[in-house]
């Protein structure tokens, strides 16, 4: 168990084994428990999220048209979605490579590397922004100044989404039987072919699950971006910052519309990647 400090939220999706437990029907006590739990869950999550959608759709489609008609909001949306896509693509490659090195390679200090992966999860987002700003900001000792540029948006997103794909791919790679790879190699497959035809298909579901989380996190990031991106309208302003300024201005209707669009984009990404994941695992 070298690498299991990721939240089970990530591991569970891919490696969960369902053992059919003896199905208990609800007794009085459990029914009461379910009632309390559901009330809390509804008051905390379901009703407030519905309130956002109701508020946004209350004014009909025109609210959305108005919001999207504003070039500043449109630019913020575009920047956020494109940056998040780019970073997710980067994570697909880097995350898989990092997971590979952590599982298959052995060298001194690997355990430290494993801990470093979790830092972006544990670090408060505002501190993440501050940390990046210290090294890559105006007083950078390296002479690299990305603050107030679009590179800052990419850098901050790469930081906060780093663990997602690593932590979903890693356990799958650990479980993977190397016999198949040896067999493929003994049958004359080159290393690249073995990786592409044998290892990669087994990893695709995990990569997709991680990519969905990474994308959703990227478009919703706020804290890490607020200091380093400079929030310049039409240039480095991301959609959550835009949403916040709507809120500060008391324009809850527009805020709700933007929030609904963000929820929809995240939902679409999760569904698309889930479909890809199913396709691949059915074919394989």
């Amino acid at each position: 168990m070298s690498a299991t400090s990721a939240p089970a939220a990530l591991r569970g999706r891919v490696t969960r084994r369902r053992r059919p437990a003896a199905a208990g029907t609800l007794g009085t006590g459990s029914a009461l428990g379910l009632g309390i739990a559901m009330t809390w869950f509804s008051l905390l999550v379901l009703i407030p999220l519905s309130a956002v959608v109701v508020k946004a759709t209350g004014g009909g489609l025109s609210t959305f048209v108005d919001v999207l008609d504003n070039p500043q909001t449109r630019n913020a949306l575009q920047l956020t979605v494109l940056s998040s896509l780019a970073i997710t693509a980067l994570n697909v490659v880097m995350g898989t490579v990092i997971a590979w090195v952590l599982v298959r390679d052995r060298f001194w200090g690997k355990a430290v590397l494993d801990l470093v992966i979790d830092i972006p999860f544990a670090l408060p987002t505002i501190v993440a922004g501050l940390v990046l700003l210290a090294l890559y900001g105006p007083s950078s000792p390296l002479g690299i100044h990305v603050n107030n540029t679009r590179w800052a948006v990419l850098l901050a997103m790469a930081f906060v989404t780093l663990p997602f794909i690593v932590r979903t791919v890693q356990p799958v790679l650990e479980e993977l039987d190397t016999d198949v790879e040896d067999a493929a190699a003994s049958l004359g497959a080159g290393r690249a072919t073995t990786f592409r035809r044998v290892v990669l298909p087994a990893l695709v579901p995990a990569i997709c699950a991680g990519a969905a989380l990474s994308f959703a996190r990227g478009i919703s990031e706020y804290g890490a971006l607020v200091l380093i991106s400079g929030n310049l309208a039409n240039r480095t302003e991301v959609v959550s910052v835009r949403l916040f300024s709507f809120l500060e201005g008391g324009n809850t209707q527009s805020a709700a519309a933007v929030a609904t669009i963000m929820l929809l984009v995240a939902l679409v990404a999760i569904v698309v990647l889930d479909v890809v994941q199913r396709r691949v695992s059915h074919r394989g």
Partner: protein
Amino acid sequence: MASTSSAVGNGSPAVKWLLRVVVIGYLFLLVAWPTAYVVRHTFDDGLTGLRTALSDPDVVHALVLTVQVSVAAVVINTLFGVGMSLLLVRHRFVGRRALSALIDLPLSVSPVVVGLALVLVYNGRFGWFGPWLEAHGLQIVFARPGMILATCFVILPLVVREVVPVLEELGDDQEQAARSLGANAWQTFWRITLPGVRWAVVYGVVLSLARALGEFGAIKVVAGNVGGETQVATVLVQQKYQNFEQQTAYSMAFLLVFAAVLCLVVVALLRPKEGHR
């Protein structure tokens, strides 16, 4: 665990070294160096920076408030998480699968959207329930209850997702045995179920504590601009930085980094125990 030799893994040393260098370089530049830099920066003048920060009453107030809100949210969420996990794993009811999927929802919702959602329902002026609650003397938005709610929202899945797989793995043979020997539901829970999942609960608590201490966006929206009264540590970090009190901002950031890394180390140390049990 035992990383086996494989056709690909034993590949050419050049590829192996290339991957190693790329991974270490990427992680060093993206995470390790920036984090270490802030820690070192905090101690530029020894302990003076930290001492100055801690003599600022605003800083102390923010830190105390952060701890209070986080602990309250973690306690509530742990009760909810353990109960919900038991219901999801040990019982069959209509909508169980849908519920299980919905629990993960907070992971994909922007913190600012979380804040907005809670404001729309609990705001004292125009919220759905806010005016009624305020008429009964309970102010939620711009006060502590709202901050606790916001924290609960973002940490909601963390305990459930740790406990559910362990409960599934455990099965319910022992629980049935206990019950057939005459234990009631409470005894079964305290003596059998809870000891079985205790490490999962501990990880869940530590992870949610780390997340709760660092929550920023959602709390910022819900807490509003009510002066220092509802200002948590993360929000104060932003304010201090923007007011050019960088040394104080770095000192507070260091304290938060320290708490976060401490949580990580605790989790890392606890985890292998379960594997060997």
